[in-house]
């Protein structure tokens, strides 16, 4: 067999089958890709790009860098200057920039940027810019004579940091650090808030997840085991609130739980409560936990239900017939089989709870606020970079959780129904 047929199989028109197949498959793949293209574009446009843009914003602020070119150039060539005692050239560059800000009307932008780390800078810059043109050298004396704040080391540290367009400053603030004359230091107890709120948000979310699990487990079991006619009726009861507007559900809880609300009125009418001893169940942590547990409950019930529905009842029957008590049957046979549902529901509820905004904003009062309310607060105060930095940290911690979950349980075991 010296002449093995090297020419392989061909199609009817003489093309090698392999090539013809590859062309046909490539065409099919292209068509498939075209089909998912709208979805891909949608995800890219509405999800990935905004997130990337947000993360970029948390590192980027050119408010000072773009309006003080002389000082920026000086900082660049003297990266190791002594903020306790900046030289005359630095002051000269600053005065030159202040005069330029006055002309270009950028005092507010530059001052606001510095104000993020050194409070009080906005009016300092305004005053400085107004007088800059009339100052005489040596500026090292004339500028601080205008306001001694100009010689403050913290201000010089702040300006040096703000001279870079890209900065980790907002993350430092989000980690409760404050810029002092000696550099970034931990803030005082009464000024620290972000880490505390992060911890609190995760704690409350864990409590809500646990409550949801405890409430949802029996309901899901009932749904899965009842005859079809009854279980669909029950299912509607679960889904109806799920389809109702979030706002409506939250305000209903306000009507129910507030001090002059339905629950308190009923307790007083029944004589269980004194009129002056009405319970405070709204505008505090209790309100947040109750309302959010209710709002998020369907996200626990549905994955649990979808898992429980396909667990064959014969397993439990087998366990019982082999002599297991009902508790042992539940613990060793039934519960392990529901784990994918528990895991999926808990992950879903926890992640949703961590980023929840509207419910705590409406019913949380003072101590029921979560980290997302602080993000909204900074957005409303126009400190978008800090809002983005806190949001970035929240995103990072969620991704970390997701990674942990994948390592410990495995993401492929997740079942959302």
């Amino acid at each position, binding site marked *: 067999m010296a002449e093995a047929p090297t020419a392989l199989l061909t199609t009817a028109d003489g093309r090698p089958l392999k090539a013809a197949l590859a062309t046909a498959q490539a065409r099919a793949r292209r068509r498939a890709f075209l089909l998912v293209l709208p979805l891909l574009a949608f995800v890219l446009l*509405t*999800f990935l790009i*905004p*997130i990337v*843009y*947000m993360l970029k914003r948390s590192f980027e602020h050119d408010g000072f860098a773009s309006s003080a070119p002389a000082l920026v150039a000086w900082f660049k060539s003297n990266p190791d200057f002594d903020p306790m005692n900046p030289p005359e050239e630095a002051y000269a560059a600053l005065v030159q920039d202040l005069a330029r800000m006055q002309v270009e*009307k*950028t*005092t*507010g*932008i530059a*001052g*606001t940027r510095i*104000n*993020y780390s050194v*409070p*009080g*800078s*906005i*009016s*300092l810059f*305004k005053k400085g810019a107004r007088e800059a043109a009339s100052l005489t050298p040596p500026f090292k004396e004339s500028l601080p004579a205008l306001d001694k704040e100009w010689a403050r080391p913290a201000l010089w540290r702040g300006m040096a940091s703000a001279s870079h367009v890209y900065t980790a400053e907002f993350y430092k603030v989000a980690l409760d650090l404050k810029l002092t004359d000696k550099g970034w230091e931990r803030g005082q107890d*009464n*000024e*620290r*808030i972000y880490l*505390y*709120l992060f911890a*609190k948000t995760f704690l409350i979310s864990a409590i809500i997840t646990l409550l949801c699990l405890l409430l949802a487990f029996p309901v899901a079991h009932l749904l899965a085991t009842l005859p079809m006619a009854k279980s669909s009726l029950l299912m509607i009861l679960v889904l109806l609130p799920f389809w109702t507007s979030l706002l409506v559900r939250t305000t209903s809880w306000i009507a129910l739980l*507030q*001090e*002059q609300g339905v629950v308190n009125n009923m307790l007083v009418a029944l004589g269980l409560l004194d009129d002056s001893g009405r319970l405070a169940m709204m*505008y505090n942590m209790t309100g947040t936990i109750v309302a959010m547990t209710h709002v998020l409950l369907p996200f626990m019930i549905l994955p649990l239900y979808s898992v429980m529905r396909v667990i064959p009842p014969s397993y439990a029957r087998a366990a019982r017939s082999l002599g297991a008590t009902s508790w042992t049957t539940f613990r060793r046979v039934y519960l392990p089989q529901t784990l994918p549902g528990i895991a999926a529901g808990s992950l879903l509820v926890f992640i949703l709870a961590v*980023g*929840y*905004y509207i419910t705590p904003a409406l019913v949380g*009062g*003072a*101590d029921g*606020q979560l980290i*997302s309310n*602080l*993000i*909204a*607060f900074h*957005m*409303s*105060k*126009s*400190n*978008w970079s800090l809002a983005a930095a806190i*949001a970035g940290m*929240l*995103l990072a911690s969620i991704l970390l959780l997701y990674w942990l979950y994948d390592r410990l349980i495995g993401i492929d075991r997740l079942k959302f129904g």
Partner: protein
Amino acid sequence: MKKTLILTTALVSFGFAANADVTVMSWGGAYGAAQTEAHVKPWSAKTGNPAIMVDSDNPAPAIKAMVEAGNVTVDVASVEYADAIRLCDEGILEPIDAASLPPAPDGTPATEDFLPGAITECGVSTDIWSNVFAYDASKFTGDNVPKTAADFFDLEKFPGKRGLKKGAKAVLEFALLGDGVPAAEVYDVLNTPEGVDRAFAKLDTIKDQVVWWEAGAQPPQLLADGEVVMTTAYNGRIFNAAMTEGKPFVIVWDGQIYENEMYVVPKGAPNKDLAMDFIRYATSTEGLRAQAQQISYGPARKSSFAEPIVFKDGKTVMAPHLPTAPENLGNALETSSDFWVDHDAELNERFQSWLAQ
């Protein structure tokens, strides 16, 4: 959540983008209604340009977001004094030519007719309003009624829940006034770290009895629902609830904190020229009078007081109900815009962390 925020922001801006009407953004509730009746409707009728009013809990951050996103859909906004100055410095607002504002009927130029400070580079005062506190007269009777700012913090004499604005501005000043600091010294005290601590310490004494409000329409509602026995509020909201809905609300003027409210035009407003015309109309002697007939905020033009201003019910004389009435200025404080331009971010952050603890 972040995604939703950005998305909804985008959607909201798209929603308005197609609108060619002159859009005025204000604070909603009784105040928004007053500006609609006094300014938006008559200006629209007079000039034939369609104009609409949109509501916001605070228009200042909203227009700043619009200008920064390059998608401005509001032509005129009603903002607090310190915001009018800060946003102007940040280049968010169009400058307004003070010389173009209409003179008083007797020919006095606008710059002399307005009270000092009522015209800034980018804003013109639409009224002078005040943070006051009010109580429900059915809860306190006889001689045992709150009369001073100190009474607001006195839980023993006047037990019951308090409503307070959820924010540092006007709340910290009020706490110091309630702690006995004379009005003239409030900002000197508040400018020191000890002063800020003192204000928060005073707030600590009532913290567990406070219901926090955010929108101006909430305090009259909280009082009416019996959720609180007294609350800080914008004076006009209480006045209007008392007048038009017959609520037994009483305003305590001791410790009031007043300031100018400013009409401004965001940079890049779609109908900038019409917006300027609207402001000229609204801040004329008659325009300011018309607003004061709708709600008890005082005009910042001397000529608006030439004849007595009467409320829209046709009988109530407004003068004694305005923050600027001499008898109401006994222990009154004018908000320092300089202070808040600088310390707004810092003190609100401290306030938030105090709240969460």
